[in-house]
């Protein structure tokens, strides 16, 4: 079997409040293959979001290593990490976090500003990403003029426009009604299936979890045994 | 009352923003107070002048002189009690940076005219008896660390040469607001010297200070005095001391107007800062207000609450600003003493500062309070979602 895209070994993280030590992640080891669609589930406070944040390079760890594409991101400095993220990670947030004063097109272009593409190339890539999420006709609209589902799709376009190594999604359907949620999940499924994007999703919505291929459960910072989202598939 | 506590809590909900607003208001109000104090200081001469004193000078301008011989004739006018001759000497002590007012006067009559100038009797006597003696204000003496018996020299500008003199008396103002930074010495000293060196300039004075018996007759007596000298070589212009001082102030009226305008500009700046804070606060809490309305709070009550918050912030700033005014004024007074001998914060200025603080508090809350009254509950909820 090919080496996993992401290799996490003995990851630990704890919060210190005064003399109290509260463990958040306890000795987590995990492999994620390229092209996988993984859902991290667990009760509130289980550490799933923290694990996601660590993988995405936006939170620090106390011990362990996170190898992504051969790079142990735990060892990177802050500015190196920022540069790494711009090339390798696409983000989808629960509340979309689009820039209200920028149009949909401009929002999608944002991550491309961190590359060396020309203005014209940036526009083309952004237009392609918007087309992939079926929102080309809303390119000039501001987030305030879009529905929740549409905003999330713009966010997804933003997440894939740099062709990142992994896409992380933190509760992507948390703020959406059922129809919009289904649309978003279908989109993520397509991205994974047709474009081969590696997607790691945190959710407490069982429907969302069902859209993924593999489900891993966290409880009090510990990872449980993996099981497929669809029991009929083999691990 | 719960409402008051609520208002207080809301005002300081964003502690940093509240503190910054208070600070902004305070700083600007201090500037306002400083400006008003400068304006007051400019007018201090007017405030200190007396209605029972007249000033007679050459009708052409203050820079022309009058014959000393006029004194006899002025004394004979009905209603005139005391006449003291004097001139602006305009001497320089060390250099221009050490500027202070210096005049020559006829000492005995001058003391009679100015009970505000209070020097210990033995010093006053010593001054009168020494022709080269000098009478200095206590603030002036403190500024240059002069003591009784010190000899100082003035370099004449209008009357050239070096003029040494000995400090024989130090006076205090017997009335608050009277200048304590002037140096007086003897007109006879000047005149005797001029008789020897520039005889054509001897026997001349710059003005006569005149004490009258009945202040209500000031205008009439002034006319009588001027009538004496119509068609003579030097025609005179006599007016009350107050009118004379007002004339001085009016010469700089353009600057004073500019300062006044600027003081109101400052108020506008404060208003901008306060209104901004209130607008932000109101906008952020639109949802809250909607909730309160559903609970039954009327638009009027909510407006009052906003007004209360605005007043707390602006009045806190106003009190702070006015309180800071006195120490800051003292600081400025030391540097500005040569321009403004009297530099005190008046009670009026403090009240004005507080008043404007209150006005700003009301105005800043005006538009947000109006908006909250007319706030549609559904619209507000829609805005949050």
């Amino acid at each position, binding site marked *: 079997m090919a080496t996993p895209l992401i290799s996490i070994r003995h990851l630990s993280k704890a919060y210190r409040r005064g003399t109290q030590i509260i463990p958040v992640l306890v000795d987590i080891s995990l492999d994620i293959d390229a092209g996988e669609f993984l859902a991290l589930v667990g009760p509130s406070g289980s550490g799933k979001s923290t694990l996601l*944040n660590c993988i*995405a390079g*936006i*939170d620090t760890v106390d011990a362990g290593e996170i190898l992504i594409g051969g790079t142990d991101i735990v060892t990177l400095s802050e500015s190196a990490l*920022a540069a790494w*993220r*711009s*090339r390798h*990670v696409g983000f989808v947030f629960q509340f979309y*976090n*689009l820039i*209200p*004063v*920028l149009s949909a097109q*401009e929002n999608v272009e944002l*991550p491309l*500003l*961190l590359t060396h593409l020309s203005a014209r190339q940036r526009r083309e890539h952004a237009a392609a990403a918007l087309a992939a999420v079926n929102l080309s006709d809303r390119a000039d609209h501001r987030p305030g003029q879009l529905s929740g589902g549409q905003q999330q799709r713009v966010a997804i376009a933003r997440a894939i426009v740099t062709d990142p190594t992994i896409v992380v999604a933190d509760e992507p359907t948390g703020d959406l009604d059922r129809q919009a949620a289904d649309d978003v999940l279908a989109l993520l499924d397509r991205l994974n299936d047709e474009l081969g994007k590696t997607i790691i999703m945190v959710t407490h919505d069982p429907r969302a979890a069902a859209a993924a291929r593999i489900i891993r459960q966290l409880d009090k910072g510990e990872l449980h045994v993996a099981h497929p989202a669809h029991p009929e598939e083999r691990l | 009352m719960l409402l008051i506590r609520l208002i207080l809590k809301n005002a300081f909900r964003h502690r*940093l*923003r509240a503190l*910054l*607003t208070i*600070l*902004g*208001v305070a*700083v*600007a109000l*201090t*500037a306002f107070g*400083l*400006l008003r104090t*400068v304006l007051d200081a400019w007018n201090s001469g007017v405030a200190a002048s007396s209605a029972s004193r007249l000033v007679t000078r050459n009708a*052409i*301008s*203050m*820079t022309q002189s009058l014959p000393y011989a006029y004194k006899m004739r002025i004394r004979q006018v009905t209603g005139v009690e005391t006449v003291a001759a004097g001139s602006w000497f305009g001497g320089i002590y060390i250099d221009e940076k050490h500027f202070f007012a210096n005049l020559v006067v006829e000492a005995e009559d001058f003391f009679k005219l100015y009970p505000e100038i209070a020097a210990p009797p033995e010093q006053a006597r010593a001054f009168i008896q020494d022709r080269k003696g000098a009478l200095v204000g206590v603030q002036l003496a403190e500024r240059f660390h002069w003591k009784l018996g010190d000899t100082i020299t003035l370099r004449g*500008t*209008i009357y*050239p*040469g070096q003029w040494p003199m000995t400090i024989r008396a130090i006076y205090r103002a017997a009335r608050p607001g009277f200048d304590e930074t002037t140096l007086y010495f003897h007109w006879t000293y000047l005149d005797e010297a001029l008789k020897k060196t520039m005889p054509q300039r001897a026997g001349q004075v710059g003005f006569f200070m005149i004490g009258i018996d009945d202040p209500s007759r000031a205008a009439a007596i002034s006319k009588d005095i001027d009538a004496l000298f119509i068609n003579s070589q*030097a*025609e005179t212009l006599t007016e009350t001391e107050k009118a004379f001082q007002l*004339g001085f102030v*009016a*010469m*700089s*009226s*353009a600057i004073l107007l*500019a*300062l006044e305008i*600027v003081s109101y*500009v*400052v108020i*506008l*700046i404060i208003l*901008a*800062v306060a209104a*901004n804070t209130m607008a*932000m606060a109101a906008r952020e809490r639109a949802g809250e207000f909607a909730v309160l309305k559903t609970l039954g709070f009327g638009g009027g009550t909510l407006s009052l609450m906003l007004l209360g918050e605005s007043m707390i912030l602006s009045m806190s700033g106003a009190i702070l600003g006015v309180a800071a005014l006195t120490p800051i004024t003292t600081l400025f007074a030391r540097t500005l003493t040569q*321009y403004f001998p009297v530099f005190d914060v008046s009670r009026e200025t403090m009240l004005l500062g507080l008043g404007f603080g209150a006005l700003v508090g009301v105005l800043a809350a005006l538009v947000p309070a109006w908006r909250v009254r007319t706030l549609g509950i559904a619209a507000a909820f829609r805005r949050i979602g």
Partner: protein
Amino acid sequence: MAVPFAYSWRNLWTRRLTTALTAGGMALVVFVFTATLMLGEGLRQTLVATGSPDNAIVLRKGSETEVQSGVARDAASAITTRPEIATTADGRPLAAREAVVLLALTKKSTGKVSNVVVRGTEDASLPLRPQIRLVAGRLPRRGTFEVMVGENVAKGFAGAALGQALRFAKRDWPVVGVFSAGNTGFSSEIWGDVDQLLPAFGRRGFSVVIAGLRHPSDLAAFKNAVENDPRYEAEVWRETKYYEKQSEMMRKFLTVLGVALTAIFSLGAMIGAMITMYAAVASRVPEIGALRAMGFPRSGILLAFLLESLLLGGLGGLAGVGLAALLGFVTFSTINFQTFSELAFRFALTPGIILASLIFSLAMGVIGGFLPAVRAARMAIVDALRQG
């Protein structure tokens, strides 16, 4: 790796009221700052232009102004024979013995009295001042009591218009001409025949001697000769230098007062900017988190917010300067503390002043916006995202 400019600019536009109030506060401060500088510059321009580098002015030693000065008749006449002085077409020295006295006239705008310079002149006085042109009426005739007045006097003082007569020293002095001296101090003067004015003012000696030098570099020799002659007790200045000194005290006073006041106000405006930017940062925390997550560096965030406050400062600056520029239409007339005489000058705007004002305004924006921008940049990504 910059956050786009549009981000900063559009955010200001979206919160228009706040932007207007904050920039408005800064505009007012800039207005006062610029106006003060304009006043000082106008004063300087007026007084510098009043003198000519070709002329020397002779005063009594130790006197600070023409009004205080006195030069005896024989001394004055002797001085005009000096070889450094140029000669006119008809062979006479280009020098004038003048008398300067202050006359109290009623100012139209205040109804109160102010001191106007009355200058007793000789034939050479006018050629010595090429800035002066007759604009109405005619020149006063020598040997008469006729006078001509500067534009500012005719406009600003009662009874001094063409065709009227001033009354002082027991007689009437008809105003037969009005002259313009551009933006110089002479526009605030009244000119007449020195031989008529001296006795009217009860004087025998002149106030000053104005000498036109053959060459500006002749000043040294002239100065040397006149100042070292024990008979004269005089001092000599180049005319331009003399007038420049006349404005020193006023300029210093205006500048110090104006700058001190502006410094204090600017604190208020900067606090206003700080409040606005803190609020801006607070309302955009999730976006900041998203931008950082995407890989934008902390410096990029810092610069984006600094740019926003810089734009605020820029808006305020432009508005403030624009407002102050309107003052260019206003003439400011007051008494010059140093000479005790009336002086009219304008608010003068120069490119240097515009630049200084804009820099000042931008600085206010940057200083006010600095701490909030730092707060935006220092946020931990996860904390910022949690606030969404």
